[in-house]
C-alpha cells in the first residue's frame, strides 16, 4: 500500500516503458534495469549483480559536504575542514557498507499459494547470508507493488513474503523481485533483481451475486443411501471395536448377547453439477466468476459437486483437494500452457 505513489510518479514514463526496455536491452543494459530473467537454482547476489547509485538524499549530502568545504576554505577553519573530511570519509564508507548489505545474499523464491483474483498473493522468499553477519532494512518488492521490509540478524535464514496484487486469473509467472536497501545512511541505494521460474495460480474472483444453481441440477445420488454420514438412520450392523459408544444400539444389546451399531446414511444424498452451459447470458469471465462462487458455496455446504466446462469435466466429489482441482480448472480455462522458462 505504501508504494502506490511509485506508479503515479512514473506515470509519464509508462507509455515509453516497452520501447525503452527494448532499447536498453539491445544496448546490453537490460540486466542493470530489468534483471536477467528467471534462474532455476538458488540465487546468490554476487558483486556482478548488485548495483549501487546515490539516492536523492545522497546528492543532498554531497551538497552539504561542498558547503562545509567552502566554509572551511573561506573561514580558514581547520576543524571545519576536519568535519567535512570526516563526513566525506563516512560517505565513502557508507557506499561500501550499503553494498555489503546485499552482497552474498542467498535467495530462494517459493511457489506462492493460489489466491482469488484481486487478492494479494504472498510470494514466499527465503533469504540467507552466510558471509555477512547481518543485513538490515532490505526492501523486497515486486515492481509497482507494495514492499516488504526485512532484516537478517546473525546469519539466521529468514522467511518472508512479498505481496503481489493479482488482476487476472490464470497461471502467471512470478515477476522479478526487486531487492533493495538504503541502509545505513540513506546515501546510496543498492539493488538487485531476482527471478525464479515460479508460478502464481490465480483463481477467478468469486462472483458477489448470491444466485444459486438451478434446483433441477440436484440429482439423487444412486449410492446416496449407503454413504456414511450423520443424518439419516440407515440400519444396524454388528459391532466392531472402535465404534462410537453413542452409536451402539443399547436397546438391542439389552435384548440379545451381541452388540449392534447403528449406521447412518450420507448427509445430502444429492449430487450437484455446476455447468458452464447454465449461464448462457454471461460472458466468459463472468461465467467463470459465477462458477467459482458456486464451487465455494458447494464446498461450504458439503455437497457433492462436479464441474462441467467446455472441454473439461470433473466428476462429483467433495473435499479440499476436489475444490482445488475445480478452482484450478476454472483458473486455467482457455489459457495456453506456458513455457516454464519464458514467462
Amino acid at each position: 500500500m505504501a508504494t502506490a505513489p511509485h506508479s503515479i510518479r512514473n506515470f509519464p514514463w509508462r507509455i515509453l516503458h516497452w520501447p525503452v526496455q527494448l532499447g536498453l536491452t539491445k544496448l546490453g543494459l537490460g540486466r542493470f534495469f530489468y534483471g536477467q530473467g528467471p534462474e532455476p537454482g538458488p540465487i546468490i547476489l554476487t558483486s556482478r549483480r548488485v548495483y549501487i547509485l546515490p539516492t536523492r538524499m545522497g546528492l543532498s549530502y554531497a551538497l552539504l559536504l561542498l558547503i562545509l568545504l567552502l566554509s572551511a576554505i573561506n573561514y580558514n577553519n581547520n576543524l571545519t575542514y576536519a568535519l567535512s573530511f570526516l563526513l566525506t570519509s563516512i560517505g565513502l564508507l557508507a557506499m561500501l557498507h550499503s553494498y555489503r548489505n546485499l552482497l552474498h545474499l542467498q535467495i530462494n523464491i517459493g511457489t506462492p499459494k493460489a489466491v482469488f483474483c484481486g487478492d494479494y498473493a504472498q510470494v514466499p522468499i527465503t533469504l540467507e547470508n552466510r558471509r555477512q553477519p547481518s543485513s538490515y532494512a532490505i526492501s523486497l518488492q515486486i515492481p509497482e507493488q507494495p514492499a516488504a521490509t526485512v532484516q537478517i540478524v546473525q546469519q539466521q535464514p529468514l522467511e518472508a513474503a512479498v505481496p503481489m496484487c493479482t488482476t487476472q486469473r490464470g497461471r502467471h509467472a512470478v515477476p522479478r523481485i526487486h531487492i533493495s536497501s538504503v541502509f545505513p545512511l540513506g546515501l546510496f541505494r543498492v539493488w538487485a533483481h531476482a527471478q525464479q521460474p515460479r508460478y502464481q495460480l490465480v483463481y477467478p474472483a468469486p462472483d458477489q451475486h448470491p444466485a444459486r444453481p438451478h434446483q433441477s441440477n440436484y440429482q439423487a445420488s444412486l449410492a446416496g443411501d449407503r454413504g456414511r454420514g450423520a443424518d439419516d438412520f440407515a440400519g444396524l450392523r454388528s459391532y466392531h471395536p472402535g465404534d462410537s459408544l453413542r452409536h451402539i444400539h443399547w436397546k438391542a444389546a439389552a435384548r440379545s448377547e451381541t452388540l449392534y451399531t447403528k449406521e447412518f446414511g450420507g448427509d445430502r444424498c444429492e449430487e450437484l453439477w455446476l455447468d458452464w452451459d447454465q449461464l448462457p447470458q454471461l460472458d466468459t469471465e463472468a461465467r467463470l466468476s459465477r462458477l467459482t462462487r458456486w464451487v465455494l458455496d458447494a464446498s461450504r455446504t458439503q455437497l457433492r459437486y462436479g464441474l462441467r466446462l467446455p472441454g473439461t469435466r470433473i466428476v462429483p466429489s467433495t473435499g479440499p483437494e476436489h475444490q482445488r482441482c475445480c478452482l484450478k480448472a476454472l483458473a486455467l480455462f482457455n489459457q495456453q500452457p506456458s513455457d516454464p522458462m519464458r514467462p
Partner: protein
Amino acid sequence: MKTLTQRLRRVTTANLWLLAGLLVALLPHLQRIPLIISATAALLLGWRMGHELQYLRLPSWPLRWLLALLAAIIIYGTFHSLVGRQAGVALLILLLGLKLLEMNDQRDFSMACYLGFFLISTVFLFTQSILIGLFMFLATTLLLTALIARYRGPEYVGRGHLSEHASLDKAGLMVLQALPLTILLFVLFPRIPGPLWQLPNDGSSAKTGISDSMSPGMISQLSNDNSIAFRVLFDRAPPPPAQLYWRGPVLTVFDGRTWFNPNHDKPWPKVGRRSRYRALNAPVSYTVTLEPHQQRWLFALDLPAMLPVGSSLSSDYEIIARNNVEQLRRYDMQSYPYYTLAQTEVPPERPYLQLPAGVGPQAHVLARELLAQAGSKAAMVEQVLQFFRQQPFYYTRQPPLLLGDPIDEFLFDSQRGYCEHYAASFVFLMRAAGIPARVVTGYRGGEMNPLSDYFMVRQSDAHAWAEVWLGGKGWQRVDPTTVIPASRIENQLDRLRFSPGSTSLSSLSWTSLAWRQLGFNWDRVNRAWNQWMINYNNRRQQDFLQKIMSRFGFSDIDWQTMLLTLLLFLFVILAVYAWWLLQRSERKRPQDPVQRSYTHYCHKLARSGLARNVAEGAWDFAQRTQQHFPEHGKAIIEIAHLYNRLRYAPWPRQEDVHRLQKAVRHFPGRIKRPQSSQ
C-alpha cells in the same frame, strides 16, 4: 493514562539519538546566543520531545509558518540583521527547531541531521579548542547513530532483536573506519589560502588582551587572567628574561586619565620611517603563535628586524596586521635585542612632550625639583627611578581606585600601583621635565614550559613600561616597575617575575606546584593541537609534505602532485576496505559455547596422547579416559556428565555451561603419564 515508562518505551530510538546529537551540538552555542534564542530553541526541542512522549501534537502547517515568521522576527529584533555570524547561527538553530516540528519521513530526518552537521561547523567559527573538537566529534557520532537507527527502519518482519545500542555500535565502527581516510584527506587535501569572499564582520567577538588605550586599572584587570596570549618558540637559546619585552601598542597622548594613540583610529596607521640602527649581535629568531585577540597588534621583541607577512610597521615601531587577528596566527620573527640607534636620529616631534593642562600640578613641581637635582636630562631618568625606589611605593595587583587626579594621587597619596601606574607617572614626570617619552604596552617575560621547549606568555604577563628619547641615544626603554624592591611586591608570583632570586618556587605550596605542573602538561597538549590541527595551513602543509617527500627523493611538491597522491592513497585505502568488508570468506556459524568447550577438552586430552574416536560418545570416551588417568577421574566424569546434561537434558541450564567451561579450563593441558602405567 499511560505512565512515563510506557510512553518512553514507544519513543523511536532514532529520534532520541537525533535530539541528543543536536543538544550536544547546541551546548557550546548556548553561552553565546542571546537568551531569547536559546529559550525559543528549547521550546521547539521540547515540543518535539513532548510529541515523542505522546503528550503533544505537532503543529499544523499554518501554525508552522506562523512560528517561522515569529522566529525571523525574533532574530531580526535581536540582531537587526539575518546574516552575519551571530544572526546566521541563530537563524540556523531556529530553522533546525522548526524542521524538527515537521519531521515525518526519512527525507525530513536526513535533512534535520544534515542541518545538525552544519550547526556543528558553526561552532568552530567561534572556538577551535581541543575540548570543543572532541565534544563535536561526539555530536557527529550521535547524529550518524540517529541516521543509522532511522534507516534501519522502525518496524521489521524479521526474527531477532536489535539491542538499543546496535546503531551506536555501527556508527562508532564507521567513524573508526573513517578516521584513516579523514587523516589522509586532512594532511593531503591542498589548502587554499582563504577567504574566497569578503566576510561580513559583525564585530561580535569580544576583544581580549591588551587594548589600544590605557587608564588606571586596565592592565591590572588582566593580572589574574591565566589564559595564553601567545606562545614563542626560539630557534636558539632565548634572550635573558630582562630582555623579554614583547612590544605592543605604543601610547603617546594623555588626556588626564587615559593614554591613547590617535594613530590607532586610522584605518591604516602612519608608516614610520625606519630608523637606522646598528645591531650589536646576531638577531634572535623565533616563531610566535598568537591567540586570536580580535585586534591588530602583533607582538615582537625589541627591535624587530623583519615584518611578518600582511603587516606593517607604524611610526612608533608597532607591528600592525592588516586585519584583526581572528584566528590563531603564527609568524616568524627576528629581533635585535642589543642595538644602538644611529646618531643621526632626529629629535621626535611634539606629541611626545604633550601633557594635558591642569593635570598633576604637584607632579610638575616634583619633576622640576628632580631635574634640578639631577642636573641633566640624561641623569633625570635615574633620578626618577631613585625616587620610586626610595619612597614607599608598593607593587600590588589590587591598586586603590584613583578617583581624583590619577598622577598626583598615585605619586603622593596611595603610592600603591600596578605597572600601568608606574609607567604612566614615569612618562608624565619625564615629559614634565621636557624629555620626550611614551608609554609602551605589551607583555613582559613569559614562562618556559619545562616539559617542552617553548615559552608561554599569558595575559597575566601584560605589562606597561616607558620609552624616553635621549639626545644622542635615541629611544631608550625604561621599566620603572623593576626598581621596586622585592619586599614591596605583594604578590608572590609577581615577585618571582620581577626580581628572581628574591623568592623561589619552593616557597610555593605543593598544591600550587602540582597545579602548575598540570598546567604545563595541558598547555603542551594545547600547543600540539594548535600546531597540527588549528594552524595547519597551506604553508605548513607545504613544509610538512616537503619534508616527507624529500625523504623519498622528490624535490618539489605542488598542489597537483598533492591531489594526485591524495587520490592514489584514497583509492588504495578504499580498496583495502572493500576487500576487507566485501570479500569476506564464508563464515562458520557462531559455534555454541558447549561444543567449543568440549572440543577444547578433547584437544587437551589428544595432546596427552588420548584422542577421542569419531564415533565415540562422551560417556564411553570418559570411561576409557578414566582408566588411563585415574588421578583425574573426578574431573573427567564431571565433564562428561555436564556435557551430556547440556546436550540431552530437556532444559539445559545456563550455570552448567559455566561449570563446564570452568572444569575444562582447570583440566591439565598435558598429563604426564605415570611410569607405572605400562
